[in-house]
């Protein structure tokens, strides 16, 4: 990894193919930059062998609005480009929420908020039980953190010292409950937490590359269209 050129325009083009949106709308998707950095520079994955045992695991807990996710998976070659225009149509593999049984590269089927983080804790424990050094990255939204199940797992993960777990919160300011500063709240629970600009690729890469003894949280703030 680390050799791919992050072609943001290409991801925007692919995402717009799925949604039919204009490119300036696709460009504003809050998860787009973080997913691009993850799949371009951070995660070890093999599109030829999606179930490769040595892969890093990524769980999109915030399963809705997955166009940027599908675009990045397509860009990496997990499935062909002609799948994208079928997005949400009858007979398509690409629904409004990703299904692991239908889309190569999707680790977990999500859509109901608050499921991904407990799942990721289990995956992190299982990888540790196997003696594996792969990591688990789970992406949630800021409003998704309203769900109490997340806070169960937020309490649990530091106690289990899951250094192989990274929580990536895409904070687009959509939470009715004011959780800001999210990273400080997570730090109180024992996470290694930091806040970065969710459009800044270098900052995202630096934060997401780091491994710590404790579970890591990266709160990526996205407030404006780039």
């Amino acid at each position, binding site marked *: 990894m680390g050799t791919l050129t992050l072609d943001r325009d290409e991801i925007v083009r692919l995402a717009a193919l799925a949604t039919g949106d204009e490119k300036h709308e696709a460009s504003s998707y809050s998860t787009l930059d973080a997913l691009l950095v993850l799949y371009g520079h951070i995660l070890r994955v093999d599109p030829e062998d999606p179930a490769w045992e040595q892969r890093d695991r990524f769980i999109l807990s915030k399963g809705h609005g997955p166009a940027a996710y599908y675009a990045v998976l397509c860009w990496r070659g997990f499935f062909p480009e002609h799948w994208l225009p079928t997005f949400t149509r009858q007979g398509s593999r690409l629904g409004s929420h990703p299904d692991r049984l239908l889309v190569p590269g999707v680790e977990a089927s999500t859509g109901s908020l608050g499921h991904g983080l*407990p*799942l990721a804790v289990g995956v992190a424990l299982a990888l540790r039980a196997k003696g594996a050094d792969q990591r688990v990255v789970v992406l949630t939204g800021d409003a998704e953190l309203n769900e*109490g*199940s997340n806070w169960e797992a937020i309490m649990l993960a530091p106690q289990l010292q899951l250094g192989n777990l990274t929580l990536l919160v895409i904070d687009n300011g959509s939470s009715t409950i004011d959780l800001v500063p999210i990273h400080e709240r997570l730090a109180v629970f024992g996470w290694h937490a930091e806040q970065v600009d969710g459009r800044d690729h270098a900052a995202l890469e630096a934060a997401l590359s780091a491994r710590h003894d404790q579970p890591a949280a990266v709160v990526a703030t996205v407030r404006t269209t780039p």
Partner: protein
Amino acid sequence: MIAMRGQAIDTVAELFEDDPRVAVVLAEISVDRFNPVFAHDPARAVNVGIMEQTMVGVAAGYALEGFHPVIHTITPFVAERALEQLKLDFGHQQLGVLVITVGGSYDYGSEGPTHHSPGDVQALFTIPATEILVPGAAAEADRLVRATYANGHLTYLRTQLVTNREPRDVEFGRLLVERRGTRATVVAVGPMLDRTLDATAGMDVTVLYATTVSPFDAETLNRELAGDDVIVVEPFYAGTLAGVLSEALGDRPVRLHAVGVPRAMIRDYGTPEQLDHVLGLDGAGIRRQIASAIG
């Protein structure tokens, strides 16, 4: 609770030692009883604290990685409180888990409705392809755990305090024939067997014994069908099995009767046996209801 739960846990502990793919995820309940598991390999055993949603999610994480997770707590806290986690983290992901509950129906007789769960099996039926096991004795729980723990399905096994006097040679997915008669067919579920046999003493009826209620053994039911009445004696809300029985019976012109827990919050206290009596589910109550059903 001791006999069936204790046996189920002992069996899981044995499987845990023999099979490195077994993982145990607990939510505070029965942690002491699982001591051998934690001692053997703490990497595959975790107590998450009082977090039932997370217990289910963490177990599904193990399952995603190829493990055979086992989870356990008091019935309503997983079957009802964490039902969506069971539905999505296992049903939707198409992953396997063995859920072992303690305190079915109103076993925690003095604790009140917060700890009762006569609706658990009905709730689990809403998740397609769930396997639902209702053993009636410790040795049956042992057999059913071994038969299902690694089969890749969402399997729900409920244990109760009251057990039958003698375990049967139960087999996953099969009804057993306890008695043959001509006037009616009685299906006794799990811990209801002994009292159903007592209740039908001297009646000319067939008695079948069910410990797997999903998938339901339609073949044996139809082969052994006697008379025009089918009476199910179930330890959960009356009518819980009406759907599967109706489907199993197809278009056969029989009358279906359900003898089970009345659909009302239980506001009385006492031992399970005392509540059985109050709710009409002791031998005398069951006999009265069966006699009334078949005239």
